[in-house]
């Protein structure tokens, strides 16, 4: 109900912004700020005939490796930190420092360490996302309620069963939230890293930025945003379907 009542406003916001952008675009000219109508044409052109899709898919494939590794490392690490004091005190100082470090600041070091190839891009994506995934999982693991573990123990659950029946489901919403935050950071780091070594979608953005018209450049940015939002929405949808108790509980409050 609430959502439906707000729909006209949501649409008005989008249309209003597009109109303002169109006016600004026509005033400034497309060598400075291309209007949305021109951007739409450019986007269609890049998607249908240009290198956009190939470069994007290539970049995303590499991103998935670094991001997948980040999930594989960050989730168990965060869970272990949340459940074990010792693990927490060992890892936490590093986690706190690395999570606030911009991935861009690591570029020079990583170029020295990994060269400018696949390893470099994977490492940057990994470093940009793993700490957010770890931290989110850690928060979830900390919040697991002792009384739920007691219930499991009371019914004779083994440690393995407590992991499967209590820890994992309790952690599930946090794993998904971590995956979402991590993915956003991974996407941002991917483009940034690619602009340093001039490959993939990042290179495409960089080169297109040298064009006379800004329409293709803006089209590339809009496509990137759409892909990021889409990936985020997919993960959110997975969460809603697989953990209905979580979303509903939040709404009930």
């Amino acid at each position: 109900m609430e959502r439906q009542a707000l729909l006209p406003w949501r649409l008005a916001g989008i249309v209003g912004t597009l109109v303002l952008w169109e006016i600004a675009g026509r005033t400034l000219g497309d060598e400075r700020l291309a209007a949305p109508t021109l951007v739409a044409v450019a986007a269609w052109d890049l998607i249908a005939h240009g290198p956009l899709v190939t470069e994007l898919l290539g970049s995303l494939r590499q991103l998935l490796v670094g991001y997948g590794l980040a999930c594989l490392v960050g989730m168990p690490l965060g869970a272990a930190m949340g459940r074990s004091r010792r693990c927490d005190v060992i890892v936490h100082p590093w986690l706190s420092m690395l999570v606030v470090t911009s991935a861009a600041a690591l570029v020079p070091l990583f170029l020295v360490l990994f060269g400018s190839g696949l390893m470099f891009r994977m490492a940057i994506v990994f470093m940009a996302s793993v700490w957010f995934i770890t931290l989110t999982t850690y928060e979830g693991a900390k919040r697991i309620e002792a009384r739920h573990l007691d219930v499991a123990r009371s019914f004779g659950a083994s440690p393995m069963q407590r992991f499967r029946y209590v820890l994992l489901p309790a952690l599930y919403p946090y794993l998904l939230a971590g995956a979402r935050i991590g993915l956003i950071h991974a996407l941002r780091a991917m483009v940034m890293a690619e602009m340093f070594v001039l490959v993939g979608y990042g290179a495409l953005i960089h080169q297109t930025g040298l064009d006379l018209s800004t329409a293709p450049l803006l089209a590339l940015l809009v496509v990137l945003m759409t892909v990021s939002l889409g990936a985020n929405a997919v993960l959110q949808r997975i969460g809603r379907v697989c953990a209905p108790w979580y979303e509903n509980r939040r709404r009930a409050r």
Partner: protein
Amino acid sequence: MPHSKLIIEDISKTFRRDDGTQMPVLLNQSMEVADREFVALLGPSGCGKSTLLRIINGLVATDTGRVLLNGKDITGRPGEGCGMVFQSSDLLPWRTALGNVEFGLEVQGVGKADRQRVSRDLLRRVGLTEFEHAYPHQLSGGMQQRVGIARAFAINPEVLLMDEPFGALDVQTRDDMQVELLRLWEDNQKTVLFVTHGIEEALYLADRVMVFSPRPARVLKVFDIPFPRPRREEIKTEPLFLEMRREIGGLLRASREPALA
């Protein structure tokens, strides 16, 4: 008592406070419970009733003594014949009502068809058939506690441990739940240890009421409750009921006095 189902022998427990000082909660407590007996443990809050129940269940390690079920030592071993109903029901929020009732059976490795049959039957008996797919947050407090009770009954435990199961409910719901619990228990009589701080609740439900002192908990007096089964709610206004209620009330007040001074 020729055949004791449950024997509690010389249980003591001291917790360490955050500031490092010792806090004795239970001192050398022993008791015997007969098969199918309904025993109420009545005492002021904070005296150590939950701790005793958790020790019997094996969730908390005891400092001394042991717990015997059918003569077998079950000290510190959860899942050995005891089913617990927790204070605030403590349902698993990610499981539906049915899934929560199934939990104990699932842990025991009972197949899906079997455990659903048992669990559906129990949900029906506590009047929640239509709510089997509801998550705990969609249920009222009374319904949640019904699921909690069904969950404990599902594993068909030899001893049912109930820790103030109706403590958080409003008076009307509590009265209804007491009637319902007795009906369920009379269908399927088990040995019950029922922790409460309600005198009326203890008298209405139990065969025997053990009155505990404030911390460290020890048994002040044991009352045998003479009212016939099945219990009728009307006994709550009988002179004998009121007399016992007064006596226990006086006992609890007297035991509190030194603490007030």
